[in-house]
C-alpha cells in the first residue's frame, strides 16, 4: 500500500505514484477554486439529476415517484452531523457515543418552541394570554436550538471530560439513551411517546400553502441543508487552522505534553464538545423542520452508533472523508432498499470489511494516515 507520508519526503516516489489528493494540491490556486466551484454547482444540481448514465444513482423505487431529493436531504443532514461529530472525534479525539442526544435536543427545541401543538408553546400561550396561533418564529427556534444544544454539551462535558477515553464512551452512550427515555416518559412537557406534529420550517407551520418549503417537494429543503453544510465546512475549516484547532491537535496527540506546553486540555475539550453539540443540534433542527413530526423512537442509541460509524468509515479528522462517509452510510441503505430485511446485515458486513481493509477510514486525514504508518512500524515482529 502506498502512503502519502512517503510521497512528501521522497521526490522519486512522487513521480511514480502520486495520489489524486497530491495531484489536486499541486494545481494552481485558481484551478482549485474553479474545480471546487464546479463541484459545488454539481451538488446543487444533484436533485435534478438526469444525465444519462448517472440516473441509476437515483433512489426512486417506484416508476414515477421521486424520493431522490428527500434522500439527498437526509444525506445532507447526516453530512452535517458527521462534520459536527468530526470536531469531537476527529479533531479533539474524544469518543462520543451519545451524539444522538444533541441531535434530539435540536429537534425537540424547534418542536417544543415552534409548534402550536407542543405543550411548551401552549403553556406560554396561557401564561401570557397569547392567541392560539402564536408560536416562536423559526429563526428564533434556530437560536434556541443552538443554545440548548451547546448548554447540554457543556453540562455533559463538564463532569465527564475529566474521565479517560473509554469511560467517556460509556457515559456519552448513556446520555443518548437518557435523553430519549426522558423525552418519552415526560408526557407533560415533551408530548411523550405520541411525539409532536406541526413543526415549523422557514415558512412557518407545515401546510399545503407553503410555496417553497412545502411537504411534498424536498428539493428546496435539500438546497437549504446543502447551503448550511457549505457554510459549516467553511467555518470548521477556519476553526481547524486556528489556535483552537492546533490546541485540539496537541491534546489529541499527547494530553500531558500539551498541558506542559500550556495548553489546558479540559478547556479545549469542552470547546470541542460544545461546538460539536451545537452542530448536532442544528442538524436535528433541520431534520425536524423537514419531517414536520417527531417522536422519541426516532432518536435511539443505534443512531448514535451509526453517526460514529460515518465518521470512522469516512476517515476521522478529514472533513471531506467524513462527509463522504456520511453520504455513503445514508445513501446506500436507501439505494439498496431491495435488500429489505437484509439491509442492516449487509450494512454491518460492509462496516467490518471497510475497517479490515482500511482501518484508518476510506479517506483518512494526511496526519492521521502518517500516525497510522508510525503505529504500524511500531508493531513488534511475530505478532
Amino acid at each position, binding site marked *: 500500500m502506498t502512503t502519502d507520508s512517503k510521497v512528501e519526503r521522497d521526490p522519486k516516489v512522487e513521480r511514480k505514484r502520486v495520489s489524486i489528493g497530491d495531484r489536486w494540491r499541486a494545481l494552481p490556486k485558481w484551478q482549485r477554486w474553479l474545480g471546487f466551484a464546479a463541484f459545488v454547482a454539481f451538488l446543487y444540481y444533484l436533485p435534478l439529476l438526469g444525465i444519462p448514465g448517472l440516473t441509476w444513482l437515483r433512489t426512486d423505487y417506484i416508476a414515477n415517484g421521486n424520493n431522490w431529493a428527500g434522500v439527498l436531504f437526509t444525506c445532507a443532514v447526516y453530512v452535517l452531523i458527521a462534520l459536527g461529530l468530526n470536531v469531537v472525534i476527529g479533531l479533539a479525539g474524544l469518543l462520543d457515543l451519545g451524539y444522538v442526544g444533541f441531535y434530539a435536543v435540536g429537534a425537540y427545541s424547534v418542536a417544543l418552541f415552534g409548534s402550536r401543538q407542543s405543550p411548551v408553546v401552549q403553556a406560554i400561550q396561557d401564561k401570557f394570554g397569547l392567541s392560539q396561533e402564536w408560536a416562536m418564529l423559526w429563526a428564533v427556534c434556530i437560536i434556541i436550538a443552538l443554545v440548548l444544544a451547546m448548554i447540554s454539551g457543556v453540562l455533559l462535558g463538564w463532569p465527564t471530560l475529566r474521565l479517560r477515553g473509554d469511560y467517556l464512551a460509556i457515559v456519552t452512550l*448513556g446520555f443518548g439513551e437518557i435523553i430519549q427515555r426522558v423525552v418519552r416518559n415526560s408526557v407533560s412537557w415533551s408530548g411523550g411517546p405520541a411525539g409532536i406534529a406541526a413543526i415549523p420550517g422557514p415558512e412557518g407551520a407545515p401546510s399545503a400553502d407553503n410555496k417553497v418549503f412545502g411537504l411534498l417537494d424536498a428539493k428546496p429543503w435539500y438546497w437549504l441543508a446543502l447551503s448550511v453544510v457549505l457554510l459549516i465546512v467553511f467555518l470548521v475549516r477556519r476553526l481547524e487552522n486556528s489556535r483552537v484547532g492546533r490546541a485540539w491537535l496537541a491534546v489529541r496527540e499527547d494530553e500531558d505534553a500539551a498541558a506542559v506546553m500550556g495548553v489546558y486540555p479540559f478547556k479545549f475539550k469542552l470547546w470541542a464538545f460544545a461546538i460539536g453539540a451545537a452542530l448536532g443540534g442544528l442538524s436535528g433542527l433541520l431534520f425536524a423542520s423537514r419531517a414536520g413530526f417527531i417522536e422519541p423512537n426516532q432518536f435511539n442509541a443505534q443512531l448514535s452508533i451509526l453517526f*460514529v*460509524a460515518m465518521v470512522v468509515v469516512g476517515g476521522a479528522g478529514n472533513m471531506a472523508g467524513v462527509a463522504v462517509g456520511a453520504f455513503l452510510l445514508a445513501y446506500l441503505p436507501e439505494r439498496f432498499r431491495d435488500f429489505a430485511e437484509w439491509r442492516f446485515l449487509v450494512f*454491518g458486513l460492509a462496516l*467490518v470489511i471497510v475497517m479490515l481493509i482500511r482501518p484508518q477510514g476510506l479517506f483518512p486525514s494526511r496526519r492521521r494516515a502518517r500516525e497510522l504508518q508510525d503505529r504500524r512500524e511500531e508493531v513488534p515482529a511475530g*505478532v
Partner: protein
Amino acid sequence: MNFDELFGHLGQHTVDGLAKGSIYALVALGYTLVYGVLKLINFAHSEVFMVGTFAVLGTWTVMGATNNPGIGMMLVFLAAGLVAGAVASGATAVAVERIAYKRLRTMNAPPLAFLITAIGLSLVLSEAFGVWQGRLVKGMPTIVPQEVVFQIGNTAITNTQLITVVAAILMMIGLDVFINRTRYGRGVRAVAQNPDTAALMGVNKDRVIMLIFLLGGLLAGAAALLYSVRYGNTRFNVGFILGLKAFTAAVLGGIGNLRGALVGGLVLGVIEVYAATLTSSNWEDVAAFVVLVVVLLFRPTGLLGESLGRARA
C-alpha cells in the same frame, strides 16, 4: 415516588435486584477480561450472549423439552443447555477475535477501527438471527418451575434466583482462581501488564488473547443458560440492552477488575429494581446511567478500581 412499596418489601426487591445483577455480572466479566488485557471494548460481546441463548433454545427444542420435566430430565436439559450455550458463545467469541480483531492488531489499527469493527460484527450477528429466527420474542419451555425455597419475613427467595446468584458467584470465584493461581492465568496477567515484555519472556501472546476471548464466551454462554432458565424467552436483539447494562456494570465496578465486574453487576441490578419500584419500570435505565455518572465523578476508575494483573500480581 412509591416509598411504601420499596421499604415495605425492601428484602424482596434486593433479592430480585441481586438475581438480575448476577446475569449482568457474568456478561460483564467478558467485557472486563478483554478490556483488562487489550484495552478494547468488545462491543460484539453482547451478541456472543445472544447466540448463547439461541443455542440453548435450539438444543431444548431438538431434545423435545417440555414444561416442568421431572428432576432427572431437568438436570439433563440443564447440562445440555450449558454445554450448548458455552460452546456456541465460546466459539462465537473466538471467531470474532480470529476473523476481525487479530487482523486489526497485526495492522496496529487505531482503537476506533476496533470499535467500528465490533459494532459491525454485532450488527451482522443480531441481524442474521433477526432474518433467520424472526424479530418476535421466542418463548422457551419452563425447565425449572419456580418455587420458593426460603421465606424470610415477606421476602421470598425462589429456586431460580438462588441458582442464578450462586452460579454467578461460583463462576466468578473460579475465574478469579484461574487468573490468579494457574500457569495460564499468570500468562494472562503478564500480557495485561506489558504485552511486549510478556512476549519476550516466552508467553504466547496470541494464545493468551484467544484464551481470554474463550473464557469471556464461556461465561456468556453460562449467563445465557441462566437467563433462559429464569426468563424463558429470547429474541434477536436481546443482547443490545443487556450488553449495554453489562458494560455499564463493568465500568461501575472498575473495568479490567474481575471482582469489580461482579460488584458492579450486583449493584446495578439492585439500583434498577429499586428505581423501577420507586417510579415505574421505564425509568430504570435512566437511573442506572445517572448512578454510573455520579460514581465516576467521585471514583473515576469505578468502585473497586482497575486491575487485571496489576496490584495482585
